[in-house]
């Protein structure tokens, strides 16, 4: 998903974009009872001498000279950045063992943990990973697996309902204008072009069809997936176009082809068009959250820990969040300056009520992550196949 953002300024990345449907993290309920078969990887007990360099796989905009150079001056660790385009690429690169750190999104993080590619994190070595980290970004799946912490939160965002206020004159309170066949904006709706968007249908069904028993939009059994697919097929009739490229989404709204649909706060801002408004309707929404993870084969663990701690400070974490266009993980950033406060306000950084309605992207797997054990849930492969049938 990040890679899409970089494409905002560089359309060339297009071919990779469609793959980006898979991004960010975990169910927000304390999934304490979830037990995964996780390889036993030891955590670092204490910091040693900085090793001189650290190799980081990151989304575009997470590792920039503006703050990496200062880090090198302070610690002597030279930062080698490798920008990845998709979560799949990140997982592949991490499995080579050549990298120390990764800025993992939700679908990558579970795979990395279960694959034994990343090590648990010793919070005692990260003074900045403390109470300033907003509550909504603690206690996620990667925080709680088998009692270990695997990720240091970086930032998060929600998938909002964007609308053209010239056409949609009243603030929508429900997603129904993009789902129901009798929508007044039929034929002018946009939807996200990736299998993970099935979760958005599930979020809508959770609210409007409670009898389906969906507890978590990323844990759908076959019946629930079929219901979501039916809803998406119904939506297909009123969709003007699906978007996966940020530039395409912006031109779709600004060019008048679509007047309502799913979006990100940063895209609304980039559209630089006063008619475009965003809201988080009553049903809630999906969203994403990213975290640093350390390789189980890291040859520079000290530099890696120093980097994770450095980027968790209010200043640096905020700089990353502002550069990327998301809500920072470190809430203390919001008190640093008027500019910071404005950014936090715009991206709802401290608004937990807001993010309580957001289901962070997670890879659907056969094990139901809502805790059900009597059924098998549908995997991301099932979702991918289902997605192809929706667009027929």
């Amino acid at each position, binding site marked *: 998903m990040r890679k899409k953002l970089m494409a905002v300024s560089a359309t060339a990345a297009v071919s990779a974009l469609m793959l980006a449907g898979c991004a960010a993290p975990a169910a927000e309920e304390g999934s304490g009872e979830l037990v995964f078969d996780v390889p036993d990887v030891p955590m670092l007990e204490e910091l040693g001498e900085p090793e001189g360099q650290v190799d980081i796989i990151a989304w575009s905009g997470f590792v920039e000279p503006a703050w990496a150079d200062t880090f090198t001056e302070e610690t002597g660790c030279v930062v080698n950045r490798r920008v990845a385009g998709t979560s799949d690429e990140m997982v592949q690169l991490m499995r080579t063992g050549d990298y120390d750190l990764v800025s993992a999104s939700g679908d990558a993080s579970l795979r990395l943990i279960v694959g034994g590619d990343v090590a648990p994190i010793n919070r005692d070595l990260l003074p900045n990973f403390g109470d300033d980290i907003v509550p909504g970004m603690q206690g996620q799946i990667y925080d709680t697996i088998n009692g270990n912490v695997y990720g240091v939160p970086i930032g998060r965002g929600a998938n909002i309902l964007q609308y053209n206020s010239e056409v949609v004159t009243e603030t929508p309170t429900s997603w129904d204008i993009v789902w129901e066949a009798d929508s007044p904006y039929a034929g002018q709706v946009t939807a996200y072009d990736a299998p993970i968007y099935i979760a958005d249908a599930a979020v809508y069904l959770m609210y409007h069809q409670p009898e389906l028993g969906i507890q978590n939009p990323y844990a759908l059994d076959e019946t629930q997936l079929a219901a979501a697919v039916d809803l998406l097929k119904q939506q297909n009739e009123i969709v003007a176009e699906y978007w996966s490229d940020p530039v395409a989404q912006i031109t779709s709204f600004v060019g008048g082809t679509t007047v309502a649909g799913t979006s990100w706060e940063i895209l609304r801002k980039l559209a630089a068009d006063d008619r475009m408004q965003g809201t988080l309707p009553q049903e809630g929404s999906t969203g994403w959250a990213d975290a640093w993870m350390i390789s189980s084969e890291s040859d520079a663990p000290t530099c890696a820990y120093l980097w994770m701690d450095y980027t968790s400070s209010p200043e640096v974490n905020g700089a990353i969040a502002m550069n990327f266009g998301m809500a920072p993980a470190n809430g203390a950033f919001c008190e640093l300056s008027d500019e910071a406060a404005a950014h936090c306000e715009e991206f709802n950084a401290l608004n937990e009520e807001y993010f309580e309605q957001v289901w962070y992207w997670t890879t659907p797997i056969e094990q139901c992550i809502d805790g059900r054990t009597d059924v098998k849930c549908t995997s*991301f492969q099932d979702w991918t196949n289902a997605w192809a*049938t929706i667009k027929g």
Partner: protein
Amino acid sequence: MTVTASPSAPRAAQSKPLSTLLYRHRWLRLAGLLSLPLTWLVGLYIVSLVLLLVTAFWFIDPFTSKVIPGFTLENFALVFSEPAYITTSLRTLGIALAVTLLSAAFAIPLGIFMAKLASPWLRAVLAVAITLPLWAGYLVKILAMRITFTEEGFFNWLMAPFGISGPGFSILTVVLTLTYLWFPYMALPVYTAIRQIPVNLFDASADLGARGFTTIRTVVLPLLWPALLAGSVFTFSLSLGDYIVARFVGGANAQMIGSIIASNINLNPPVAAAFSVIPIAFVVIYLVVTRRTGALERM
């Protein structure tokens, strides 16, 4: 000459050792000529294709998305049993055929005009105009079409006074955009073929009383047929494999074969591989049919 060929001519061998060696060993000459293209063809092209196709018989770990070698026909069963996949395949085939026909319909009159009627100066201008789009980036051209056909875009603005509204983003727009992209590959062979038709054939046809259209039908088209088929191989197969156009100007219902392959390639490579057999089959059938007409010999 004879000196170079003789093994007992040390002076000549010293002066041109490489030529002598190549002259003596026929297989070395062949190896020198063919090793590079063959390495390319076999090593990079065929092997990678085979590796991809073999994956179609493999399994996938649903959690890690790692492929597991084995043997299953389930991926093919899925591709051929799911109605949506079949619809998508037929839609893609229809789009590719429409693009080919449209390109041919534009290329023939343009070619006749350029080759037989236009002044040399105008001919040069038109030749540049046809090839110029090839110089622009593929994505740039698609985005240009996107801007043209967007709701408040150029097309609707231009046509608004006549009460006409454009196709928006739809299958029709996909066909138009693909035609725009691949037209030069049709126009150039057709133009070249028409230039090679002797002018006196037109005169003879006219002398025998044929009007313009009859001349085109009975004289030009039969001579043009191989060039048309050669051009159509490009327009057809390039359209068949495209998915970026469908994504940018296709709207909600223009999913193509490439779209499905692209969405599966990372998460479920075996299904992507199984599905990639369909366009290959289409192209092979098309080439076999085309070959029977002898068009490939003229390329």
